[in-house]
């Protein structure tokens, strides 16, 4: 465990550039930054295990060896602990045989005590050790069969290698979410640093020393932090695996779709990993301005709801009906209505809410738009959650939709039809929502069966967040883009914007049209396009 608390200095957009000499070529790199990151900016990948851009530096894996000019002349140094200085000379394995040999040597040491059980290892395919081995390894092993390591793991699950040698703690249960396979651990120290310096709860530590060292929890305790699943992401080998994903899928089958997880208004960036129309897991996607590399366990497990309790059809008066029938019935109810309450949602994208506004415009004076949420707002945890469960609250504000649900409850008797777009009012506050029972026709658009759909007179199924493309504005005024993963349980389900725009009689052909409608409503979105938002989102200057 390193006792050094320095986080790496990462290149920013405004970092001034200086000239350094890499492999006998003068290049421009961001000044003062971590050399691993600086080399990345010019397209040179440095193999590493312990280094992580969002963890304090440890410098213990020694894999990122480079040659640089130090006080004693050109010599080996670790790139992760070498800051960029103007005029410095750096030799990577592309020009230096010494670096090549040093990296191969470190790789040999890593593998000396690592079981080659890749075929049964859950990390295979996204294992840093595999990747780095292919880049810098020797190619052929000279490690002899009797060279093995002894572990002191869970006595019930000891692992024996092909020679019948006892190889230690297998399937060690660290807590409710994470399993440890000790024999694969390369002691890079990332997980303990994450728990100590990011999660702020030192639940993991490295016991013993030398090659007998192993990761463990303190006696009588377990790994049960709200962020502990992140250790399975940063584990460069298959030592720490997540119970919810372990042995569920081979990672090379998974296709990745960029999105944001809409259970919190910080909008943590994730990729949706899916295979054959099913979401297999959510993985954090690094965004230095939002969630760094971390997501909470709660956010990570939101994907499980995507295949539970889904509404794939419509429902009227307790009977399932087809989606088209439900649509037609909704259109009829709205056209006959005397006064309509349209409830927008902070759980929907800006595009969806633009659809609702288009419907309001079409219905004219008999429609009134309400928004907001009765969910309780918590406090930020300083990592990847703001505490506000309404992900797109800022987006509602931008579109001019007020937080006025209490007003709606008070004036419920004025309306004869209410259309609720994916806003679980009865789930959030049954007491406050009780007033809405007075409205005769309650149309609910929802991806899931919930307390609100139970109260509805007409339910229309829609696509869930993972299945739609659209934008949300996070609590800091950063607009972020979600891409649609092809995981919808039924292709006939529509995104909310499409359903609403059809009810409004608009001919929007894609979410781009919906976005244009949304952007037209909000001055802050002037000049913003999906392209400018990109994968990392865009800070809206007027909200900064």
């Amino acid at each position, binding site marked *: *465990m390193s006792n050094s608390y320095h986080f790496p200095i990462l290149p920013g957009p405004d970092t001034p550039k200086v000239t350094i000499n890499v492999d006998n070529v003068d290049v421009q790199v961001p000044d003062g930054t971590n050399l691993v990151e600086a080399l990345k900016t010019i397209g040179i990948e440095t193999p590493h*295990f312990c280094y992580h851009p969002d963890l304090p530096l440890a410098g213990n894996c020694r894999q990122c060896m480079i040659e640089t000019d130090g006080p004693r002349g050109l010599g080996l140094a670790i790139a992760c602990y070498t800051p960029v200085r103007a005029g410095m000379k750096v030799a990577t394995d592309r020009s230096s045989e010494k670096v090549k040999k040093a990296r191969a040597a470190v790789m040999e*040491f890593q593998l*000396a005590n690592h079981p080659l059980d890749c075929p049964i290892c859950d990390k295979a395919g996204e294992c840093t050790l595999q990747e780095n081995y292919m880049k810098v390894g020797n190619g052929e092993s000279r490690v002899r069969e*009797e060279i093995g390591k002894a572990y002191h793991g869970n006595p019930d699950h000891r692992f024996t290698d092909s020679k019948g040698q006892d190889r230690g703690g297998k399937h060690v249960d660290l807590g409710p979410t994470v399993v440890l396979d000790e024999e694969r651990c390369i002691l890079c*120290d990332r997980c303990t640093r994450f728990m100590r310096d990011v999660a702020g709860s030192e639940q993991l530590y490295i016991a013993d*020393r030398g090659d007998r060292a192993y990761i463990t929890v303190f006696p009588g305790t377990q790994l049960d932090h709200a962020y502990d699943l992140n250790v399975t992401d940063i584990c460069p080998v298959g030592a720490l695996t997540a119970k919810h994903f372990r042995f569920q899928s081979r990672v090379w089958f998974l296709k990745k779709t960029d999105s944001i997880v809409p259970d919190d208004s910080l909008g943590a960036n994730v990729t949706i990993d899916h295979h054959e129309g099913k979401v297999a897991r959510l993985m954090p996607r690094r965004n230095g301005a939002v969630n760094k590399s971390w997501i909470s366990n709660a956010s990570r497990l939101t994907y499980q709801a995507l295949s539970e309790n889904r509404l794939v059809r419509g429902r009227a008066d307790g009977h399932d009906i087809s989606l088209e029938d439900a649509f037609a019935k909704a259109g009829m109810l709205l056209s006959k209505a005397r006064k309509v309450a349209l409830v927008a949602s902070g759980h929907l994208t800006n595009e969806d809410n633009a659809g609702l506004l288009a419907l309001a415009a079409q219905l004219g004076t008999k429609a009134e738009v309400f928004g907001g949420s009765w969910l309780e707002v918590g406090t930020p945890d300083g990592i990847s959650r703001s505490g506000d469960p309404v992900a797109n609250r800022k987006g509602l504000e931008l579109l001019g939709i007020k937080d006025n649900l209490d007003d709606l409850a008070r004036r419920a008797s004025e309306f004869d039809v209410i259309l609720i777009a994916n806003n679980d009012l009865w789930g959030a506050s049954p007491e406050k929502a009780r007033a809405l029972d007075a409205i005769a026709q309650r149309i609910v658009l929802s991806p899931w069966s919930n307390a609100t759909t139970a109260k509805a007179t007409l339910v229309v199924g829609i696509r869930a967040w993972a299945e739609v493309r659209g934008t949300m504005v996070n609590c800091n005024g950063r607009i972020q883009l979600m891409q649609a993963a092809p995981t919808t349980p039924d292709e006939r389900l529509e995104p909310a914007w499409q359903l609403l725009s059809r009810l409004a009689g608009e001919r929007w052909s894609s979410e781009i049209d919906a976005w244009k409608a949304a952007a037209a409503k909000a001055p802050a979105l002037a000049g913003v396009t999906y392209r400018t938002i990109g994968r990392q989102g865009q800070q809206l200057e007027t909200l900064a």
Partner: protein
Amino acid sequence: MSTFPKILTGNFGKGAADIGVYKSLGGYSNLGPKLFSTSQFEMIDIVQRSGLRGRGGAGFPTGMKWSFVPRNTGKPVYLVVNADEGEPGTFKDHFLMLEDPHKLIEGMILCGWALGARTAYIYVRGEFLNCIESLNKAINQAYEAGYLGKNIAGSNYSFDIYVHRGAGAYICGEETALISSLEGRKGQPRLKPPFPAVSGAWASPTCVNNVETLMAVPWIFENGPEAYAKLGTPKSPGTKVFSVSGDVKRPGVYEVPLGIPMMELLESPDYCQGLVGTMKGCIPGGSSTPVLTPEETAKVTLDYEAMAAAGTMLGSGAVIPFNTQRSVVGMLKTLTHFYSHESCGQCTPCRDGTGYADRVLDTVVDGHGRDGDLDLLVDLANNFNGATICPLSAADAAPIINFVKKYRSEFEAVVAKNPKRDEPRLDAHFRPGGFW
């Protein structure tokens, strides 16, 4: 043999662990107006001019080390005494602390004054229970006599000393690991920079000195740096305490001026009184220093420069000559086992490399050595040599490389006893083109 002042061991056998005896031998005489009218910079200058070098092993100039400690940072300055004597073969600090603890305390006060430190820690190796007892007793006596605590010796300078008992880890003799351990963390070396002088214990300026180094300071202050510089050689001035063990007639702790021939230490009637048997080699400065052959031992003198010229190090002054009855293979096995066991487990090359090398040597010792094992051993040692945060990997590599280089025929003879020595290194099914 020339006569010289016994700066460090002069009080041995006189009961100087008691403050009354220590004072009657001239102790604590430095703690007077002369000290408190000497500025911090003058004090550092005195030590710099004396040429005193760190006695822990590296031989870094002490005065220069003190001058690196920044002043007026708004943080306290800590003095930490490294008494975690762990290098195999070294036992000088043990006796110095046991026999003359007050001299260490006096040296610490002088150093503390030079650094502007108010608090000092003595990090004592856990096994040295008698040293801890002796130090605690001496410190209590010094507090009672007014040499420690508030306003020492009537001045307005206050200085406190705490004894911290380590847990016996070799690596805690490395200064940053020692600081980590002192802070209550796992004793693992830290990345440098920042150096301890800038950010050490509790992220404050910290000076870590060896016991023997500080014990030379009272004499230097009393007799002047020039008198000290006259002893020894120009670049390695002063006297040094050597711990001699191994095949000599009278092993023990000997103080000699630096620069005398190694053979004088081993054969003089004043010191070791000669070797037992015929010398096969000599480890000159602790187990991590490269071994010397008898021819090299005969030529080398005991100073930092001559040792470096001979391709080895003066180190902590642990001289271990061994005779022809000793097996160098067995000796090296003892050392590789020690270093792989004491690796803190932080850096990959050291954690996995030292254990790997140890297990390869294990097979050789067990009679299962195969052709190429010696080359493998040396290649592994070269690969982890110095590739780590601290020098422990280098401390393991030096004996492996040098033992195998200088006594190769003996290693080969052990391998040759294995009738299956030419068997392929790998299992057939691990080889490309085999099982797959």
